[in-house]
Every structure is written in structure tokens, then in C-alpha cells.
């Protein structure tokens, strides 16, 4: 048996003038978990797409089990026993689990066999997975979908499994379950490459770590001989302080109070159920929850983008329920929601940075009756934001979609802060950002907090939230599981609350989410 299950030598891949991978070397032993670590845009996903046949490299060699191969299509990579679980699942929503697996069946039979459900159930059971092969993907939870993806690659005999940021969508408990599965597969001799930028997970699961930076190979280290700080240095290329500060501010009266809020989602199901909470000036309230447990609907309701079924939204003692989005913007409530595709809401991708700066204030920029748009103001705003947040762009007139992910988000956050809001609702502001940009954003938020802005921070990384937020509210299927002080709680506790196992609201006698010094006078 060859020493390495996979060996990539000097892989180079360019897109136009952009070099995504430059002479990258990567070796994976059989029965090993290798973590591929790097900031956004460092070429991790590109490299793995080369391995799984989605991209063709411009140069370099690939060896599988010691034999040189050329992978020109995903089909060939499958035949070589390489399976990839993508960050965005490649599943067909309206098909059952079994049918999604059978999609890749090339046995040449014209009809689907009737016993495919049993076959796949048996296969899953043999490997120790729990899955209902008749369940439609649409109705599955995220972790189920991921399990299905893993079964899918194993079903076609993959010996080498690549997982692209598998934990981004999972809770703490689900993550540890996934890691158990990965360890089991490793013991059975599979080779696993896991792409991630969460250092804690790298330390927990991997045997060795290969670090990429800006498309170049940096180093490969043995996990047991390294630590978070060293890995960060390799990844970023310089020393960086990993602590997020949490400035202490004086206690202020509640700024935004939400009482008994109920909101429906697009399908008409209850997304937010009888939720009460409040934000004070100069505080960051975190919102934790599994993906899709009502965060989006909550943000939209506050911004006036989604009608509320019932409940009160009180801003500085005045009700903002039922106001138009424009009126709410004028009251100084800024909402930024970074969706998974990062561009869906808040920015207009084909327009320039200048034009995006004008998005929320183009009507206020000059007199109401002036039909012309004031681009000069937009341009000067753009220049300020580019300078303040060190955005990397050729000019202020570059379309936003041509910027890299981190810069796109800086444009969005920069605009929101430029408007001088008193409440910032921000969902996933660091989604997919590299360490530097993330810390830049934490600093911006902290600065706003010190200036007396109330911040609602919807996040996914619990480690970060515990450091950054003053308090954390946990949602589970649209219901509040309690508000905890981040000084005296743990990640495990939050995880239990997120899945609804632990509910703190029922425990203490007082009604949760209502400030003692509330602005709302009960009738």
C-alpha cells in the first residue's frame, strides 16, 4: 500500500488573472484526518474542487494511492473513490433521501428498483447512521441533510472524503456527533480532509493540519505539536491577538423593547412565537439559535420588512409596529442581514460602491422635489468608508459583486454605521470572513457600543458570541429559551438551550425579557 492515499503535487489553478492555487502540495495518509486551514480566499475550496474534478488544474500532478491520475470530471473522481460533501448541499429538495442517492447510480438500469429504500436503509444501518430513506429532503433538518450527503459519498465507495466547512450549519451537539462519525470512518481506514477556519475544531478532530494563505502552500504541521496561536500565525502570516474585547458600559434605559412578538414566515408558519426582549443603549445582545429558527424573520420584523401578527415593538417609548421600512430607517434603526449568498439583502450587486452607499439615503440626500440623485455625496461616503474600514477596491465605481466577500461585507457594515444609527440589528456580520476582517468588524461594533448604540447581534459562532456579547438570548423554533449573561454561561449550556433541551424561561418566576425600568406602561 502506498504511503499516501492522496498526493497533490504543485497544483496551480488560475481564474483569469487571479491565482487561486499556486504550486500547492498536499498529502493525506490512509486512515487520517487532515484539516485544511486557511482564511477566506486562500484557495481551500478551489483545491478540493480540483481534487473532486469540478475544476481542471492548470498545472501539477495528482496521485491516488501512489498512482498518477488525471481527474477531468466529478465522475472520474467518484470512480477513484473520492467523495466531496459541499458546503452548500447538492441535494434535490423534492426528492426522498434514497432518490437523492440513486441519482448518482450509473448501473445503466432504466427503472429505479423498488427495494432502493430498503437497500439504503440497510446500508446506513450497517455503518451506524440513522436515516429514513423515504423522507423528503425538504423536510429534513440541516444535520440530517449532511448525514445524507455523507452516506451518499460512502454509498459509492468513497475512501477519501472531503468535507467543506461541515460544521458551519451545526449546533455544538450536532458537531460532536459529526466528529464521532468522522473518527469512526477514520478507524475504518478512510482518509478525511476537512476544510474549516475554526481553530478549535481543527485542534479537536484533526491529526495533521495543512495551512494555505492567499493561494499558496504555507506548511503542514502535526496537530498535537501545535496550538491555536501558532496556527493563526501560519494562517494570517503575522501575530494576532485572538481576544475579543468586551468594553464595559454604564447601564442605560431600554432602547428597543419587543413584547409578545409573533411573526409568520413565508410559508405562513409561525416563525417567532410570543417573543419578548429588550436592548439597552451601549449593550450587545446576542441571538443564538440553530439556522432557521426565526432569526431572519425577527430581523425583518424589526426592520419593518415583514408584517407582524401581534405584539409590540417600542423604540424609545414610541411604537414602530406597522411603520414602513423607510420610516424605521429614519428613526435610526439599521438592519443588516448577511444571507448565505452574502449579496441577497442589503446590497445591490451590480451597482457601484457609490450607488450602494446611497441606497438608504438617496431620498434624504437633497430636497424631496429634486429629481436628481446626489452621486457626489455617495462618492464621498464611499471614499470615507473605504478609508475607514480599509476596503480593498480599485475605485469607488467598482460594482460590489466584483469585490471579495470580506470587502462586500465591509461595504454593507460601513454604510450602516455611516448612517449613525442608534439601534443596529446585525445578522451574521462575519459570515465567511477571514480573521482580520472579522476582528475589524468586532471592533467597529464595540466602538458603536461605546457610543451608546444598542446592538442586536445574530450570530452562529458561539465562542465569539460568548466573548463579544453582554447577554445572549437563545431561540429554539421561534420561542425564547432564556436570556443568559455571557459571563456566567457555557457553550454546552447554550447548545442545550438551542435544541430546546434546556428552557430557562420556565425556571425563575418572573416573566423573561421584560425590563424592570420598561418604557411600556401597562394599561
Amino acid at each position, binding site marked *: 500500500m502506498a504511503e499516501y492515499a492522496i498526493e497533490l503535487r504543485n497544483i496551480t489553478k488560475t*481564474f*483569469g*488573472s*487571479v491565482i487561486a492555487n499556486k504550486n500547492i502540495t498536499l498529502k493525506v495518509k490512509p486512515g487520517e484526518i487532515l484539516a485544511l486551514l486557511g482564511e477566506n480566499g486562500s484557495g481551500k475550496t478551489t483545491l478540493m474542487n480540483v481534487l473532486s474534478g469540478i475544476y*481542471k*488544474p492548470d*498545472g*501539477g*500532478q*495528482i496521485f491516488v494511492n501512489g498512482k*498518477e*491520475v*488525471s481527474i*477531468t470530471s466529478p465522475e472520474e473522481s467518484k470512480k477513484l473513490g473520492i467523495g466531496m460533501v459541499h458546503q452548500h448541499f447538492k441535494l434535490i429538495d423534492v426528492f426522498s433521501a434514497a432518490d437523492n442517492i440513486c441519482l448518482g447510480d450509473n448501473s445503466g438500469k432504466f427503472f429505479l428498483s423498488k427495494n432502493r429504500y430498503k437497500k439504503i436503509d440497510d446500508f446506513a444501518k450497517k455503518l451506524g447512521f440513522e436515516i429514513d430513506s423515504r423522507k423528503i429532503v425538504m423536510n429534513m433538518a440541516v444535520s440530517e441533510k449532511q448525514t445524507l450527503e455523507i452516506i451518499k459519498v460512502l454509498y459509492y465507495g468513497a475512501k477519501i472524503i472531503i468535507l467543506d466547512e461541515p460544521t458551519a450549519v451545526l449546533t455544538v451537539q450536532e458537531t460532536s456527533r459529526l466528529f464521532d462519525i468522522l473518527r469512526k470512518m477514520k478507524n475504518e481506514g478512510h482518509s478525511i480532509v476537512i476544510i474549516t477556519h475554526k481553530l478549535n475544531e481543527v485542534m479537536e478532530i484533526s491529526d495533521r493540519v495543512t495551512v494555505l494563505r492567499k493561494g499558496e502552500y504555507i506548511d503542514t504541521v502535526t496537530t498535537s505539536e501545535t496550538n491555536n496561536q501558532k496556527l493563526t500565525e501560519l494562517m494570517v502570516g503575522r501575530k494576532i491577538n485572538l481576544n475579543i474585547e468586551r468594553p464595559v458600559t454604564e447601564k442605560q434605559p431600554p432602547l428597543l423593547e419587543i413584547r409578545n412578538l409573533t411573526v409568520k414566515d413565508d410559508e405562513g408558519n409561525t416563525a417567532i412565537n410570543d417573543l419578548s426582549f429588550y436592548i439597552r443603549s451601549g449593550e450587545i445582545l446576542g441571538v443564538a439559535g440553530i439556522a432557521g429558527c426565526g432569526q431572519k424573520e425577527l430581523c425583518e420584523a424589526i*426592520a419593518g*420588512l415583514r408584517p407582524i401578527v401581534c405584539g409590540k415593538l417600542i423604540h424609545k417609548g414610541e411604537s414602530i409596529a406597522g411603520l*414602513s*421600512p*423607510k*420610516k*424605521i*430607517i429614519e428613526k435610526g434603526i439599521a*438592519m443588516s442581514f448577511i444571507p448565505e449568498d452574502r*449579496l*441577497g*439583502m*442589503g*446590497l*445591490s*450587486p*451590480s*451597482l457601484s460602491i457609490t*450607488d450602494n452607499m*446611497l*441606497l*438608504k439615503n*438617496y*431620498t434624504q440626500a437633497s430636497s424631496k422635489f429634486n*429629481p*436628481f*440623485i446626489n452621486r457626489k455625496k455617495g462618492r464621498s461616503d464611499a471614499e470615507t468608508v473605504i478609508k475607514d474600514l480599509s476596503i480593498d477596491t480599485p475605485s469607488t465605481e467598482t460594482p460590489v459583486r466584483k469585490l471579495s466577500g470580506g470587502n462586500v461585507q465591509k461595504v454593507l457594515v460601513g454604510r450602516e454605521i455611516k448612517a449613525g444609527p442608534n439601534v443596529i440589528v446585525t445578522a451574521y456580520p462575519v459570515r465567511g470572513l477571514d480573521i482580520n476582517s472579522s476582528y475589524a468588524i468586532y471592533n467597529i461594533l464595540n466602538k458603536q457600543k461605546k457610543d451608546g448604540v444598542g446592538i442586536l447581534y445574530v450570530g452562529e459562532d458561539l465562542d465569539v458570541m460568548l466573548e463579544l456579547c453582554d447577554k445572549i438570548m437563545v431561540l429554539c423554533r421561534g420561542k425564547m429559551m432564556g436570556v443568559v449573561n455571557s459571563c456566567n454561561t457555557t457553550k454546552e449550556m447554550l447548545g442545550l438551550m438551542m435544541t430546546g433541551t434546556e428552557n430557562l424561561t420556565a425556571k425563575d418566576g418572573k416573566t423573561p425579557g421584560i425590563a424592570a425600568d420598561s418604557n411600556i406602561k401597562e394599561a
Partner: protein
Amino acid sequence: MKTKQPFVRIVRRTDFPLWAMIIINIAAVLVAVGIGAILLAAIKVDPFVYYKDMFTIGTIDNRFAYKNFEGLIEFFVPLLITSLALALTFKMKFWNIGGEGQFIMGAISSATVALLLGNSLPSWLTLIMMAVCGAVSAGIYGLVVAFFKVKWGTNETLMTLMLNYIALYALKYFGETQAGWNFFLSGESVRPVFATFPESAWMYTIKIGKFSLNITLVIAILLCALIYIYMKKTKHGYEISVVGDSQSTAKYAGMKVGRIVMRTMFLSAALIGLAGTFYVSTAHSLSTSVTNNVGWTGIIVAWLSRLNPVMILVTSLLISVLRVGCQTAATNFPVIDSNFADLLQGIILFTVLMADFLTRFKIVFRKNTEKEVEDK
């Protein structure tokens, strides 16, 4: 060397300078003309003579050359205005393919005004009333579609398409039904023929020697400038761009998307209705082929010009020369009729799309790497 490289690869370009963009597009048109020349030669028509006739729209050695220019303007003005109007909605990603119907609505309403008023009012007032009625009625014809789309999410492509036929058959009905109420028809003819407009409904012209310059041409070019400013410099134009780019962003920014969609569609349809008015007041009567297909050709013009008003001016002039030129050339070349214009237009569309592809991507052929050389 085992790493197989595909023979050709398509690589995205990041930058393409403007001058190269202009050159490659001109080259595309020339290639299309070249292909046309081969086709002409194949049916034993001398392409040089034919093209000379076509591109000069038969004005050389012609005592009545001014007539040809007038014909060109008569075709060019409605096409220009329609293409501009369509570009407005396309920019918003609202697929108005109902230019034909809106044009006919404008033509019918302004004809109604012209025929009912007769010569009772001064000419300028008649013309203004015709323009207003033509624009407003066509605008409403388009607004209905936008309203349904905003209110119930109907498909605008299907609706505008179907409304084209309703307008067309209404026009045909008026053109073929001889009855006392039907003032659209001429009273003097035994066969159903559309009535000629009273003189006060004739569009003004400025005499320059024998040539009479139709003032709609001046208005159309003015409109082109106005729409350029509207799209690029005004808040409305900005809103159209944002709605076209991302509706959720527009809503998030507090824009009233429904209102913007309805407003823009009304404006677009009204402009097309105005084009209809201009056409009938220049032709002095209705006809069942009143549109000259500008509702369709306008779509092509708008896209070939990438929705840029200045480009639309150039492209619609080119297409007009093509059309009118082929018609005049057809009189000298009996073997080839004016439909050759359609053929050329189609070829140009293909070559320009190809040019567009080349501006976005480059094709890279496999290079002989060192190892391959060793293999040999």
C-alpha cells in the same frame, strides 16, 4: 505527461477596455455584412452594387433622394422611441414584450382623436391632444400588466404578449367592419379602407428645400437625451437599477417596489404609445401594419445596445438603414426582396452576441508544455 489538459478552455476576462469593445462590435457588424455578401454572391447578385444601394438607401443618382430620407425617418423615429422605452423596463428586469400592442393602442387612440375632431381645432392643439391620448391610453394598457404583476404576481411576459394580439385584432376589426359607427373607415370608398386624417392632425414638418424634416425626429432625439439623463442621473433611474438588480435589496432600502414597477411600466408604455401617435400623424392614416414590427425589433435593438440610450440611437439608426435600404434595393434587384433585411438583422444579432462572448471570456488553446514536447 499524464495530466490531460483539455484542448480549448474558456477563461473569464476581468477587464475589457472600452475602445476594444467598440472595435469588436463594429467588426461583428462587418462580419455579418460579409456573410450577407457571400449569400448575395451565391444568388448571383453583385454584393458591392447591392450594398451600395442599400447603405445609401438608394439616394445616389436619385432625383427623389429626399423622399428616401423621409421614409427612413418615418421608420427610424418609432423604432428609436420604442427601443428606448423598452430599455427602461428591461433595466428593471420587467420583460415588456408588448411594444406592438402598446404601439397599436397609441395609434388607435390618437386616430380616434384626429378623426373625431376633424379640422375643428388649431393644428397644434389637435396634435397635442393626439399625443396625450395616445400616450395615456397606451400607458394604461401597459399599467394593467404591471398592476396584475404587483398585486397577484402574474407573468408579465405572457400578459404583454397576449395583449399584443388583442390590440392587433381590435385594429383589424376596425379596419374591416363597414358600419355607420365606424369612423375609422373612409366614407368615400366602397371597400373598407382606413380614413385619411384631417389636415390639422398631420405632423409638422420643416421644409429644407424639397426635403421636409419631420419634427418627430427632433423630439425623438431629445427624448433619447432625456431618457439617458432619467436612467443615469435621477432618483427614479436609480430606483429602476436597484429593483432590476435585487428586489429584496430595494424593499430593504425602503423603496416601494410595486409603485416603481407600475410607474416605470406606465412610462415605458406611454412612450411607445407616443411613438404610435407620431407614426400615424406622419403617415396620415391608420393601417393594419402600422407598427412595422417595431415592438419586436425594439427588443433586439435594446439588447444589442445593452440598454444604453446612446447605443440605442446608433443601433436603431443602423437597423433602420438596413430595413429601408433593403426595401429600396429590392426595387432594383428583383431576385431578392426586402426580407433580406430580416436575414441580415438575424446574422448581426448572432455576430454581436459572439462579440459579446469574446469580451467576457477568452478562449485558451492547450499549450505545448515541456513534457509533451519530450513525449514527441
